[in-house]
């Protein structure tokens, strides 16, 4: 169970060394902000409940990322998630599949 403050508790991000330190993934927080964990938990819960297919979710995510990147050629992922809502011009760009050619996959 979560600490009383849950993930919205600012202490979640601040205490980085004590016994209540947030879990780290090779030195990096798994979730950079509480809303990221909330969105993650929500997507998995919706998938488990059979309300969304993961592949549909993934395709929608790819569309959003591609559109945002097409409109922000030098953008960074961190700002993608913060700015996508504030920037309508992000929509309607070229699909990201056209923007980059995935490398060939080796036959293992």
């Amino acid at each position, binding site marked *: 169970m979560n600490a009383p403050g849950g993930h919205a508790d600012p202490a979640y991000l601040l205490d980085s060394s004590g016994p209540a330190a947030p879990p780290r993934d090779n030195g990096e927080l798994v979730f950079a902000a509480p809303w990221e964990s*909330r969105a993650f938990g929500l997507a998995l819960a919706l998938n488990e409940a059979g309300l969304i297919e993961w592949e549909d979710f993934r395709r929608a995510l790819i569309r959003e990322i591609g559109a945002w990147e097409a409109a922000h050629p030098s953008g960074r992922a961190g700002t993608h998630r913060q700015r996508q809502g504030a920037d309508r011009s992000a929509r309607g760009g070229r699909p990201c599949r056209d923007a980059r050619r995935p490398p060939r996959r080796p036959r293992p």
Partner: protein
Amino acid sequence: MTTGADRIDPALRAEALASLLIERGLVDQATMDNFIKTYEQSVGPMNGARVVARAWTDPEYEERLLADGTAAIAEMGFKGPQGEHIVVLRNTPQVHHVVVCTLCSCYPWPVLGLPPSWYKDPSYRSRIVREPRAVLAEFGLELGDDVEIRVVDSSSEVRYMVLPVRPAGAERLSEDELAALVTRDAMVGVAEVAAP
């Protein structure tokens, strides 16, 4: 979809969506919390490190791992979402694999947990394909010109994990001691495992 809701701050949007879906009984808070807690605490690169250490010390396991990553990883008890089709690629002194997801952030969760922010960064996702040697050098990994670099693209069909080269000087270490040497970055292929 372009709606007014897209302009809302992501924290508010996540909160509003969660509240609405919980209120309507479509998801429950406990299920969400459980997923979050699992990926914050129980699933992470320490799982992959155990797989690598076992492969380094047990040739038969290594063979099974390279033949069917998903099954050999499940053998160690690591299963779950995004782990359905894991392919393990073995690095050698001659061939170095590095993993990317060019379209989004596909990643083998059961063995590595959730991806780090740089893995999701547009610059990593495009540059590692175009100029892998330069990007790896920026990570601090200078590979000789004689080493072939293979960039592999993870997707929903296949998620790659790298089996790094076992470092020299680690011959006498136990499996646990070896696992402690293995880093997330080495299993993505942007680093090598340093000698103890």
